């Protein structure tokens, strides 16, 4: 599949609600059972404001908007992020991740593009240098 994109173009946006139940489900599916992601008492004992999302949950959830736009998960060639801020997940309630995927670089010869993700929770960017290299 081939498509034309322009630098600066927003190719996908998504709003993701995250609950404690989502974190428990991710813990099971991923095998990351660190109690800071589901146990309030443990999280506060180690100095966190409360239960926080797995960085890898946020990373995994944020990229799906790009996969959907691409139409083939196999077209994600490279994906890297820095975990800059924790995502506290309240109970009751939920955290909301606002994802924006913007074209940063297009390499027409290679048939690839770098898509940069902005992921914001409560007005704060929670991922840094979130870059997805995709095959167009």
């Amino acid at each position, binding site marked *: 599949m081939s498509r034309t994109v322009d630098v600066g173009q927003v190719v996908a946006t998504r709003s993701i609600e995250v609950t404690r139940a989502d974190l428990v489900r991710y813990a099971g599916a991923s095998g990351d059972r660190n109690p800071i992601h589901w146990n309030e008492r443990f999280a506060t004992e180690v100095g966190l404001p409360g239960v926080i999302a797995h960085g890898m949950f946020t990373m*995994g*959830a944020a990229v799906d908007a790009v996969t959907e736009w691409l139409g083939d*998960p*196999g077209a994600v060639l*490279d994906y890297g992020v820095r*975990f800059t801020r924790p995502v506290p997940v309240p109970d009751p309630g939920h955290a909301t991740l606002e994802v924006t995927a913007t074209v940063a670089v297009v390499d027409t010869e290679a048939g690839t593009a770098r898509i940069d993700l902005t992921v914001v929770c409560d007005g704060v960017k929670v991922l840094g240098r979130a870059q997805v290299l995709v095959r167009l």
Partner: protein
Amino acid sequence: MDASYAGRTYPPTAAYAVGREHLREFASSVGATHPAHHDVAAALALGHRDVVAAPTFAVVIAQRAEAQLLEDPGAGIDFSRVVHADERFTHHRPIVAGDELVTVLHVDAVVERSGLAMVTTRCEIADANGSAVATVVSTLAVRGEDR
């Protein structure tokens, strides 16, 4: 954290069998609804051999390999003092159900700065033929002991 671990390479892991239901379950857990993660026919239509892993699924395989370092008493990593700093996946080809994947863990760097040890690991994941499938680079920030 023992800085002399930098440069260390571990022996290849036992093969990890990638299961179709696990790929579906992992994809669902991160809200990945693309049919190629779930439906074999949809994956085949895109030219894949079976359902395709979500882009971050390789962390499941990588963290098993990384456990060799994290659970090594000699390395001196207290897991309750670890924060995940960054993660990167390079897919040499998509991971699909039915893959049997072997991982070699490399400790690329241990950098001490202001009471933190930044530990960068690299997992080279290959299939049963020895062909490269994915490279997973992860950096952990390990806080030192309280003084």
